[in-house]
Every structure is written in C-alpha cells, then in structure tokens.
C-alpha cells in the first residue's frame, strides 16, 4: 500500500522534475514537445479541478443558506450572480459581440462584472490612505525611516510639496526630484534586489526538496 501511496507518486515527482529541469539545458524539439505536453496536461487538470471548485462553492453556500448562518442572504447572490452570467453565456454561445451588436453576455460583462470589479479595485485607494496613516505613526526607528522616505516621495509628487521643499531646502541646491530619484534607484533597488536574490535561491532549494522527495508533506507523512 505504501508503495502505491508514497513510492510511485515520489517517483513520478522525481522523473517529471528531473525531465523538466533537464529541458532547460536541452534545446531539442523533444524537449519543447515535452514541455508543451506538460502544459496541456496542466490545463486539462485545471479544467476538471475547476469543476471541483464549483461544487465546493455551491456546497458551502448551500449549507450556509440551509443552516441560516449569519449573512446567509449573501449566499443567495452567489447563485444569482452565477446564473446571471452563465445563462447569457450559454444563450450567446460565449460571444460578447454579434453582427447585431452587443450580446446579453457582453452586456452582463460591461454593466455588471466590469463595474463591480472596478469598484473593488478603486477601494484600494482608500485602503492605501488608511494604511499610510497607520504606518506614519512612528513607533520604531524602522518606521521613522519608512515615514521619511514616504514623506519625501509625497512632497515630490505634489506641486505644493515642491514649493515647500524649494522654500525650505532650496539652499541645499538639491531638488526634491533628484532626492526621489536617488531613493528609488539606490536604496529601494538595493533592498529589492536583495529580496529577489533570496527568493531565487529559496525557490531553487524548495524545488530540489520537492524533486528529491525531502519535502513530501503535500502527500501526507509516513
């Protein structure tokens, strides 16, 4: 049983992992075909997995409605929203435009989905303000550095801020634009590159752990 549940899956991971890794160094058509095949398999698995996701979604919200938990009314909108998009999609054969103009699916996208999505994205602006307010409450030396960098950037981006800079620090001969450019291209890039190098090395080691079966928690432990 352990052979089927553990050994075979680990062997598949090892073989597929090594082949995929090798394909980076082998430019032959076999290698390209292999990668294309893997992508196709991934797409097929994703399609079937999406069905599982849909079942999970319906089951979760059905149980919320049937148990009348707090906010169960919102769950009804899941079904309404689902049918509001799926029925026009079936009727219009998945096309948003036809010879006669916009289809029902196109209308649903244009007047339901897109405004809702844009609204959600727009909320981000308000959250950025509230987050900035919280981070500007200086509680540590690191928070002070963050505040200082953010404050200079705000000054540089607002015309009034530029006037203040010139009147207060104009004697230094350094424009706020130059200071911003230095912050963005020297300390910010240095920090970012450090993080990216760490991420790249971590990704390599994590991949090796999975390929060689050191990390196998995703399939349960012995």
């Amino acid at each position, binding site marked *: 049983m352990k052979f089927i549940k553990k050994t075979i899956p680990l062997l598949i991971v090892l073989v597929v992992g090594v082949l995929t*890794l090798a394909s*980076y*160094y*082998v*430019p*032959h*058509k*076999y*290698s*390209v075909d292999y990668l294309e095949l893997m992508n196709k398999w*991934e797409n097929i*698995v*994703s399609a079937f*997995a999406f*069905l*599982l*996701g849909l079942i*999970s*979604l319906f*089951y*979760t919200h059905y*149980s919320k409605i049937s148990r009348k938990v*707090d*906010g169960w009314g*919102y769950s009804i909108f899941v079904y309404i929203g689902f049918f509001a998009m799926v029925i026009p999609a079936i009727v219009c054969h998945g096309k948003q435009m036809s010879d006669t103009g916009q289809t029902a699916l196109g209308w649903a996208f244009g007047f339901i989905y897109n405004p*809702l*999505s844009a609204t*959600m*994205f727009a*909320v*981000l602006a308000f*959250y*950025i303000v*509230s*987050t900035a307010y*919280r*981070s500007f409450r200086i509680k540590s030396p690191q928070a002070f550095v*963050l505040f200082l960098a953010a404050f200079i950037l705000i000054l540089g981006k607002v015309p009034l801020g530029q006037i203040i800079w010139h009147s207060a620090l104009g004697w230094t001969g350094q424009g706020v634009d130059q200071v911003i450019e230095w912050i963005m291209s020297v300390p910010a890039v240095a920090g970012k590159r450090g*993080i*990216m*190098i*760490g*991420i790249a*090395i*971590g*990704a*390599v*080691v*994590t*991949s*090796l*752990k*999975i390929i*060689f079966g*050191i*990390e196998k*928690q*995703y399939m*349960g*432990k012995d």
Partner: protein
Amino acid sequence: MIKNKALHLIFVSLLTAGTAAAAPSPSGGKAGMVPAAYSINGFTAADMPYDVGGAALLRWLASPSDSADTVYQVFVSTLAAGGWIKADEFPSSAKTGKDMDLPFWAWDGHKAEHAVKVEFNNTYGDIPPGTKFQVRVDALRDGKLLAQSAALPVAPRGNWFRLDRLNNLVLLIVIVVIFFWAVSHAKRKGLFIRRIAGLDAIDEAIGRATEMGKPIYYVPGIGGMSSISTIASAFILGEVSKKVAQYDSYIKIPHYDPIVMTVCKEVVKQSYLEAGRPDSYRDDLNFFVSQDQFSYAASVDGMISREQPAAVFFMGYFMAESLLMAEVGATNGAIQIAGTDSESQLPFFFTACDYTLIGEELYAAGAYLSKEPMLLSALKVQDFGKLVVMVSVFFGIIAVAIGAKMHWDSFVQVILNLFKAY
C-alpha cells in the same frame, strides 16, 4: 558620318551595359553583374548551435571596403534555384562576430567578421525537420548591389545541449552536491537556525483565537500550484492546521485556485490526523471562492468583516488584493501574519500586518515549523547560496572595476559572461 554613328552606338552600348551592371534588382531577384572590386569572402552557412533547430548561422569576413552606407541583405529560399525571400537587413557596422549573444566558452567570434542568426520560422512558419534551405547574402550601397555571395545549402537541426548555459549547469550541480551533503549532515548533527519572529507568533495567534472562540483565516493567495510560494504556503498550512487541531480551534481556508484547494484539503486532513483529532476535520474547512482576483478579495473581505477572526494568515502569492484583504483584517483587530515572495506587495503587508515573512523566510517557514532535521538542513543550502552571491558580487565588482580601469576588455568580458544567464 558612318564612323561617327558607329562611335555613338558603341558609346551608348557601353553606357547601357554599365548601368545594367551597377543597378540590378536589389530585391532578391536574379543575380546581376557586380563590380569586381567588392566581394563577400569566407561566406559559410551552418546549423545554429544550441537551438531547437529552426535557425542557421551565417558567417563571412567583414570587407575593408565597408562604409557607413553599406547594407547587407540576407536571403533564404527553400528551392534549389530562385524563390528568394529577404530574411534580414542590417548595416555593415552591425552583427559582427563579437555581437553574438553567446559566452566565450561557446562562441569564438571576431570583430572582423559578420555572424548572423537566420530564423527560418520567422519566414516560413513551422518547418518540418530535415528541411533544406538555400541562403545568400547581398551587399548594397545606396540601393545598388555591390556584391553577392554564392548560394549555400543549409539544413537546421535540433541540438541536444545548451553549451551557453554551462555556467548555470555547473552552479546547479554545485548546489545539488551541497544540498545532499547538508541533508546527510543533518542526520548526524543538529543545526542552529535563527529565530523568525513571524513564525514564533503563530502559536500566540492560534492561542488567542482559541481563547476568544473566534475562527482563524488562512489565505493562500492567488498563485497556482506551480508557484513556489503557493507550495511553501501549503507546507506552512500543514503546520498551522496541526496546531489548530491540537488547540481544538477552528480554521477556514478560502481558495482562489481549485487545484490548490484539492492539495490543501489533503494537507489539512493529514495534519488533523497527525494531531490525533481526525474527528474535528471537516471537508468544508477548505472552500473555493472565485478565480477572479477582486471577487476573491471582496468575498474574503466580507467573511473577515462578518466573522471577525482572531488571527489571519496571508501566505503565498499576492497581487493588488493583498492590501484589500490585509487592511480589512487590521481594521477588525485580527493578529495578522503574512508571507509572500511578491516583492511589490511586501510594503503593504509590512504596514497592515503584525508580522511579515520576506520572500525566502516563506520558503523556510515549513522547515522551521516542522523542525525536521532533513528539512532544516536545506536552509543551510540557502545560506550557502547567499554566501556564493555575496562573495561573487564583492569580488565581481572589484574585478570588473579594475578591468575597466585598466582597459582589460577581454578580462571584463569573461567575468560578465560567467555571471550572465543565457
């Protein structure tokens, strides 16, 4: 009179012949007569090395007569004669042997030659293996043909090794060797691992949720299962859910990707089993929300606002929705621990969460929490990798700076080639 007419005819004939020789069709038609003073020497056509098999490498010597207005045109054909199609055009100062983007160990190019990669796929689309092509180069000045090379046959073929990526392969082999050394070393001795505050706070967060009788939310982000950060997130989820099971608390995991949901179900189930609480496990702890970024964020925000969890974990790959969710969690007073390798989202997590795991700490978290020697040993490999990078950067800067100052161009080129990805 007759003599004058004959002289006139001879003059006109010579003029016509001269014009015909100087201005044949430059657009790849039949080869015309060319001046003898200019020629394309040493023209060769071979399969392009280190590629999938759809390109040829053309080389010829740069002519001393080349001037700023000399242009080369490369023609290709699938026929034995004629059918020429222009594949490339460039000035004589471009595409020398030195300009080829290959390292010194895989390419010996000189400034005194031209080297051109001709990709047949761009001209003919997908080409069947073994297709033979004819190639030719024309040199032109002011639209007039100066010289034309002989037409050469070439049959591109797929290669078996990217010699230009040898530096990458050597580094990989070194890392693999050290990886296995570290793993075997870990079996004999314990390793010191520095404390990671964000991971130490997991117990505190779960304990708080248990005391308050509120749920814990674990958000695995919007990455697919092929994303390393999502895989790392699944490992962390295993340890977090084990602790949740031990504390008899309650965890909810909303998903963006159905495949991730399926994997996480197995992980959580296994954790509950290991914690000795299989009876507490429910299949709906993991549930699918939406595969649309903002729908997912809106749904998670709604759940956090309504249920007011005591602790929220954001572990995995995030984009713009990071702040949308983290800010709602912070407003509701939850202890928030985040971890992502998406460096553009890290500032948002820093400001909105109590603890943030930066990039590699996310990858290390699973090993850190499980405390398994085999997994912990892999962290040593990460440290080794960072050491290699630090030493390379330090000595690389010094070597390149000295090389540039002393005008050791070849030396600088060697250093740059060694650390470049091809």
